[in-house]
């Protein structure tokens, strides 16, 4: 890894980074928009957005069509009512069966969301949901978070993806999975648990340095009694266990409850700054300049945390389409996998992809901690890249890639050069050197190797698969 690397792009910030981009609009930039505001899209999606104006292309993503045709939740794995039993009342066999059921449900949940990401007509909604999942990072399969706890939270995030994030934060502190995850469900007046109060400020809204330990203790008191009912799983305010005494929080005094705490936090200037920094690192480039962060924070405040207009401005801005932002992010494993499915027009993920996601370092619903995924350089190591290449290899060899099902294997290309143009154009938007294209053409034509014959109707499918694999292994394909 690069010693002392900073991954902020070289060069200077434009004078008005959020001013609307007015330069040329083409498929290369439409693909950039789709990679960032979605997962890459299909070649047809790229063509469609390239034909619109840049402004209309962004609006089509921010004001997205109905997603009612997609399944709203995964299929439920029947546990025979076991989950409601107390573990002590169960036999060893029943416990094993319950653990098996839970694992099956976990897999169903992951597949459900990944399929939504592949097929949704609202890619920005799914991308923002992924951002929020990494932001309010909650993992299932631990701390009593089983079944559809995490799916319900995911649907909550999705509902607010481009909505008001103050309202979302009010909803998150009442979310069953979050209350379990950060131990608030059992936080009672006599023994306040500080976990949720602390992470709310440290990781979700303000960042270290913008509150004190005293603020953590006082807000933990305010969140006592925020729990859920075991029978329905719905939020329940247990007034008997709530500490309704006066608290001093961020310089204010009052008999605050948890919702008062959220409102006070969102009045802090640091709150919009926190969200702005994370949004920029996720959607634009790593380690954004403090001035840029402040500009986006002001935009968030001006829109009172309504994210549709914020994203609309950001995705149409000069900084977003600048050369400095282009391919300046590392694709996350989700970007890489979902984008590859979309690239070849495969509408559904294969269940075998689940363990592969783990090997790549990003299994949805399983962030490594409440801090989420660090992203950037942390996605890159030999094992995760081997996993990416081997995923490409397996995908290209899969039955979903049969002739007639994908643009890749339509017909025998008229020449290796023509085929290379198609591959480099469609997979990389032309982001390869002339020398690399020459190398791919040589591979397709079988030149330079004694064993291989010229491109023919017998060998072109295998050659195209091999060349597509190589194109997907090039550095540009790892970058967004």
């Amino acid at each position, binding site marked *: 890894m690069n010693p002392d690397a900073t991954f902020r792009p070289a060069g200077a910030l434009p004078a008005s980074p959020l001013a609307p981009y007015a330069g040329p609009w083409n498929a290369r930039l439409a693909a950039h928009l789709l990679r960032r505001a979605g997962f890459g899209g299909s070649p047809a999606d790229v063509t469609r957005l390239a034909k619109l104006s840049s402004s209309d292309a962004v609006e089509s993503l921010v004001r997205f069509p109905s997603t009612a045709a997609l399944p709203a939740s995964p299929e439920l794995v029947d546990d025979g009512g076991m989950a409601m039993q107390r573990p002590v009342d169960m036999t060893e066999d029943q416990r094993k069966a319950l653990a098996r059921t839970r694992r099956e449900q976990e897999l169903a949940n992951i597949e459900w969301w990944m399929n939504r990401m592949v097929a949704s007509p609202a890619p920005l909604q799914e991308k923002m949901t992924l951002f929020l999942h990494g932001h309010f990072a909650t993992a299932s399969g631990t701390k009593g978070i089983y079944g559809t706890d995490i799916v319900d939270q995911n649907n909550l995030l999705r509902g607010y993806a481009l909505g008001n994030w103050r309202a979302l934060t009010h909803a998150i502190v009442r979310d069953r999975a979050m209350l379990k995850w950060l131990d608030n469900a059992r936080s009672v007046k006599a023994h306040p648990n500080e976990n949720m109060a602390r992470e709310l400020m440290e990781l979700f809204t303000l960042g270290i340095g913008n509150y004190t330990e005293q603020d953590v203790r006082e807000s933990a008191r305010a969140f006592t009694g925020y729990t859920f009912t075991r029978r329905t799983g719905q939020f329940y305010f247990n007034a008997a266990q709530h500490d309704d005494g006066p608290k001093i929080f961020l310089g204010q005094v009052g008999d605050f409850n948890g919702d008062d705490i959220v409102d006070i936090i969102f009045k802090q200037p640091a709150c919009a700054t926190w969200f702005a920094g994370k949004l920029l690192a996720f959607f634009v480039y790593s380690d954004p300049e403090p001035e840029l962060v402040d500009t986006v924070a002001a935009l968030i405040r001006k829109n009172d945390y309504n994210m549709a207009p914020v994203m609309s401005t950001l995705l149409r801005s000069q900084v977003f389409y600048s050369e400095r932002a282009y391919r300046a992010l590392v694709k996350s494993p989700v970007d890489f996998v979902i984008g590859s499915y979309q690239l070849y027009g495969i509408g559904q993920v294969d269940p075998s992809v689940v363990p592969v996601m783990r090997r790549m*370092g990003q299994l949805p619903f399983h962030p490594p901690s*409440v801090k989420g995924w660090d992203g950037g350089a942390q996605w890159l190591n030999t094992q995760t*890249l081997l996993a990416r290449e081997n995923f490409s290899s397996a995908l290209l060899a899969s039955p979903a890639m049969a002739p007639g099902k994908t643009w890749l294997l339509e017909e025998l290309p008229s020449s290796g050069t023509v085929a290379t143009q198609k591959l480099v154009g469609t997979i990389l938007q032309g982001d390869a*050197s002339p020398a690399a294209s020459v190398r791919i053409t040589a*591979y397709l034509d*079988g030149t330079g190797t004694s064993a291989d014959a010229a491109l023919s109707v017998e060998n072109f499918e295998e050659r195209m698969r091999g060349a597509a694999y190589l194109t997907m292994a090039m550095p540009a394909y790892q970058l967004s």
Partner: protein
Amino acid sequence: MKRGGFLIGTISGLTVAAKADSFFASALAQPLLPGLPGGVDERVLVIVNLQGGNDGLNTIVPHGMQPYYRYRPTLGIPANDVLQINDKVGFNPEMRSLKGMYDAGNVAIVQGAGYPQPDHSHFRSTEIWQTAAPERFESTGWIGRFLDSAELPPANLFNAVAVAPVLPEVMVSRKTDVPAIAALQGYGLASDRRADTRSAFASLVHDDRVPFRSPYLATVAEIEDHAQRGSEELPKLVAGYTPSGAYPATAIGRSLSLAAQIVGSRLGTRVIYVQHGSFDTHAGQKPTQDRLLRELSDGLKAFYDDLAAHGNDKRTLTITFSEFGRRVAENGSRGTDHGEAAPMFLVGGGLKGGLYGEHPSMDTLDNGDVKYTVDFRSVYATVIEKWFGRPTTGIIAGSFPTLSLLA
């Protein structure tokens, strides 16, 4: 990110070692911390992560402390069964192999290892042990920071190796690309079987005359190159090593066998990570923990027999850790819930075996948990300073007394 100065054909143990010398020269020019015999740059650390939270009280059993039997009516191990170290504590009866190594002076036990304000979450506490940063979120691991500071040869693809399916947080660094290798089988590019694909891949991943600029371009190219060459080279590099004796046919046995192979092949590797578990025994603890402890104990015995047969036991130090111990009182399911302090093991031919630190009190508990008596960062500081001869500056925040168990 330099690349291109490294030839595939030259990566043999000897060449790497020779290369390493020049890179170590600047490090060695600084005065080493006192009390270290020679060969520091040959020393290897093996970290064993006992995942899930190992119940320390049924590992090193406080058979001489009566509250133990009161809190553990069904899980308590009778004093007669315990492999006694003294009238207070002893090994779990399944750990005969490790007890034998202890009696030979090759095992140090640090009792009551933990940290202030312990977190009971697997995720967070695992992160705390791996980053050595209980008081803040830290994105690099303590080993990662050690690797970054140790001036290791950047051309060596195997400065450290994680025997694991994904890179553990402990080895996340800013400058050192650590390969995660679950097993030699499957560590490689599926497409590499075709020579033309392999050679095209090797040239295409270096495509840097691209029509865009990206701050990540060089890093991606470098790691893709490492991935291809490393996965191709490693099996060849370690192929000359023949394990001495049989390892148990367990996951930890296989992991340690690979670790011995890497140590013995002298690739310049300084740290190897392996993992074992899951020790998360909320219900029906005894059969699970007994099996895991037996596998650990027998695995370590085979590992050190193998290392010793190749003359590597004195240059290899193994330490174990787990994210927490478990609650003192057993629960209603013959299991135990998440707790706090627990013992750590250090194993090797070059240490002073014995008991270190105080066993935590069983009379005064911290909300039902035993309180830590040794901050685990003392053990880490001991490893950094006394095993690797490096200062802890920039690796471990704060100052922690070292233990006198090495040299």
